[in-house]
């Protein structure tokens, strides 16, 4: 099982590095990086702290296969992060539609004022 745990640790380190790099380049906002960083650190700690992994596995009733804890954790994290992003996307879409409508209405009103001024100045 050690190679699997080490692979998970490596992937966790890669995720942490990727998120930090993205943060530095402003490709991701701090609030949206927290869940990825939290999950990656949790996976890193559990994969390298064998006694803790076994304790969590026993507590969850997963028996002699502590790696199941990590798989379960990965699935839960992906689910929570995806759901959170669905909520964020929905809010952004609503805001985007409202903004597009506002822009269209403001442009319409500006055009109307322009046309009115042109008409008045032609007299």
């Amino acid at each position, binding site marked *: 099982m050690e190679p699997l745990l080490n692979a998970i640790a490596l992937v966790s380190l890669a995720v942490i590095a990727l998120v930090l790099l993205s943060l530095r380049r402003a490709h991701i906002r701090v609030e949206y990086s927290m869940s990825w960083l939290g999950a990656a650190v949790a996976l890193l700690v559990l994969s390298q702290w064998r006694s803790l992994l076994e304790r969590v596995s026993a507590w969850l009733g997963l028996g002699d296969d502590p790696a199941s804890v990590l798989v379960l954790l990965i699935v839960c994290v992906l689910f929570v992060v995806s759901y959170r992003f669905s909520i964020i996307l929905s809010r952004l879409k*609503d805001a985007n*539609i409202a903004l*597009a*409508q506002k*822009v*269209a*209405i403001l*442009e*319409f009103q500006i055009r*109307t004022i322009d046309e009115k001024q042109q008409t008045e100045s032609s007299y």
Partner: protein
Amino acid sequence: MTHSGGPGSVLIIVPAYNEEGAVGGVIAEIQATVPGVPVLVIDDCSEDATIVTARAAGAEILPLPHHLGLGGAVQAGYKLAFELGYEYVIRLDGDGQHDPRDIPVVLDTLRSSGCEMVIGSRYIEEDSNHTSFLRSVGIRFFRLVLRPILGKPVLDPTSGFVGVNRAALQVFSKSFPLEYPEIEALVVLKRRAFRFIEVPCRVRPRAAGMSTITPVRSVYYIVHVLLGVLVNILRFESRRWRR
């Protein structure tokens, strides 16, 4: 457009997406039926010459900065109409399926009935509809679903030929279903104890362009609308419980 809303003022809105082949004729028919009533075409970021055609036909244009879908386009029209102070707004589609000669019936009923919404229905006079089998089955299904929710029967819940007064306009400016809006809009109105009435209207085949309805989309439409209706009811009920 005479931007002078106020008591008795009427605005015709026509949401359009890639309707260059039909929208000009629709506007000409509207102007022939109700001369002097302003027509606003809400262009949902068409890729063809819809804007040019509609402007040439004498309509005002509200061009959206990007494609919002039918609900977003209609709501943009409602928002503008509300801001400009219009009292009545009649919406019909830009593909030529709705006959603008029915506008006076919708408008007169809106003025005289006191209802917040008037629906131009294809099914009051049976010989006037050109509905496909699939759509017809969907409409029958939604009639059954909506009957207990609305407390009265509705013959044509998916009609896009609709007139609303200022009270409904105010509600729709703030809350309007953004995808497949017609059925959910009825539930939104019901939540406010608003009333609607149906009047007969003629429906014709599309003047140009192609329908986007496919069997897969129809199933998606039914599930989407059912979920939207359910969510609207749950919101309404949770508010009632909190009171």
